[in-house]
């Protein structure tokens, strides 16, 4: 979700918009998935916290979606699920995403004021990219910290076999 959200505006300024969005989604997803996997393997408590945050985020996002559904004529239940999914991505790493969003909007505002050709959509794009970068950075930091703390020793009794 963070990857596709970050791609929405910048990729719309390239002729290879779809390829750009797919690359962004895939790379962000790989970073998140890799980090999450190692966090889960080494420190299940952290993963539990992230899951709890994601659940809260989903609820909050979906609530916003339900309000939007009542206000925006074209919105339906798929849009409620979409706002929920975005809230889930935000809620799993609230500090990182919030910090990233703030930093992105700050940088975007400075550029908007300084560069005449920098447009309002660019400012919004800076915020979304910051949010995604912050959230992903938080996942990586969590993985590194989980590794250095040696893990909690708790194992999760299932595995995937391909």
């Amino acid at each position, binding site marked *: 979700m963070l990857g596709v959200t970050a791609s929405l505006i910048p*990729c719309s300024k390239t002729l290879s918009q779809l390829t750009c*969005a797919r690359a962004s989604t*895939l790379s962000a997803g790989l970073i998140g998935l890799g980090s999450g996997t190692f966090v889960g393997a080494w420190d299940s408590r952290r993963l539990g916290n992230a899951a709890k945050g994601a659940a809260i985020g989903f609820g909050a996002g979906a609530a916003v979606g339900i309000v939007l559904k009542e206000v*925006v004529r074209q919105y339906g239940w798929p849009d409620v699920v979409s706002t929920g999914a975005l809230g889930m991505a935000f809620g799993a790493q609230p500090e990182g995403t919030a910090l990233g969003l703030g930093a992105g909007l700050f940088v975007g505002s400075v550029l908007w004021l300084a560069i005449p050709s920098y447009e309002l959509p*660019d400012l919004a794009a800076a915020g979304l990219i910051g949010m995604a970068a912050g959230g992903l950075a938080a996942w990586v930091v969590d993985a590194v910290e989980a590794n250095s703390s040696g893990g909690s020793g708790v*194992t999760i009794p299932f595995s*995937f076999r391909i």
Partner: protein
Amino acid sequence: MIRPAGVCVAGCTALLSAACAISAGMRLGPADRGCPDRDVASPGTAITWYAPAGPSDGKSNERWCETVGPSVLEALPRASFPSPGPADSMAVVAWNILIGGGDVPLFLEEVLGYQCHPTSPELGIGFSHFVLLIQEAHRRSAAIPDVPESFTFPPRVVPESPPEGWPDIVELARGCGLALFYVPSARNGPETVGGEREDKGNAILSTLPLEDLLAIELPFEAGRKVAVGATIRTAGGAQLRVTSVHLDVASTLYRTFKTANTTRLRQATGLIEALALIETGGVTSGIVSVGSGATGCEDLPGPIATVAAGDFNTWSAGESAIDQLRLCFPDSPPWDGRPTYGSFPTDFIFFRTGADGQISSMGGSQTRIEKRYGSDHQARIAWFGPSE
């Protein structure tokens, strides 16, 4: 135990599928649905329809088109104007008139030197013949079907201070003695007022006769959009195809994520592909598959010079939809870099010459008209004429 490597393989596969699910693929072909707008309120005239053939696009567009009335064609202007001279240019205007909120007669008088009159309008000395490519035209009619409220209706838009009498596009054309081609895209609310209902869409008004009429139903995003096209014969028989276009401002959040915000690129690609099909011989049977990223303009220029202009609802002039249109309309008059809807650059005029090279863009860049004339958009104007 979790096996990180295994999780990664499974997760990567899921991610790859998710990334690839972001899609803007569509197909275009002749439309064959039975919607009221396939009928024309002018006997003996045929409109060639193009529509996206994808099942999702088709169903969504059909839900909207069953609420609108017939298209309107008055192919000949009600007054006879002097024929354009061999060296005369022609003005092409793109203007979103906000459901009749824009004062078209005043605009015609001040910008194009044209005095509206039902039978004896006057084109000022030294002024060009013109074509108005209108978006958000509205039409009132009892022929618009009275359907249940369970059908798909956008809410009614009423301009804050419309011109006196709030004439609809048919009344405007007749009151000004101009040729008209109007195709409704959607209803303007479900209300019935005085036995009449309203729909809205794109239109062409012209001082010259309109031929070879086209209606291009664009890929469905947030609402149904139908681009309208016609061919105009200028001095010496040179033909110019003009198309009035209106793209969506935004899709739903779900579609925005699913299609990676390719709302307008998808619609622009649909327009480009339909125009390319027409230019390269048209489609008379079957379905032509069109994938994402295909420009559809490799075989151009076709035989006829083409203008595609209107309200593209872009948030930035660097959007992929605009870049794609610039690629396929390489002879467009340069953009002046000025916004036409608040701070947003939404309105553009694109152009490509025909294979015969008879018509070209004249008079420098496409220009923004400073006054809004009651609309929320400023119009754009460009001139075209015989190549030197």
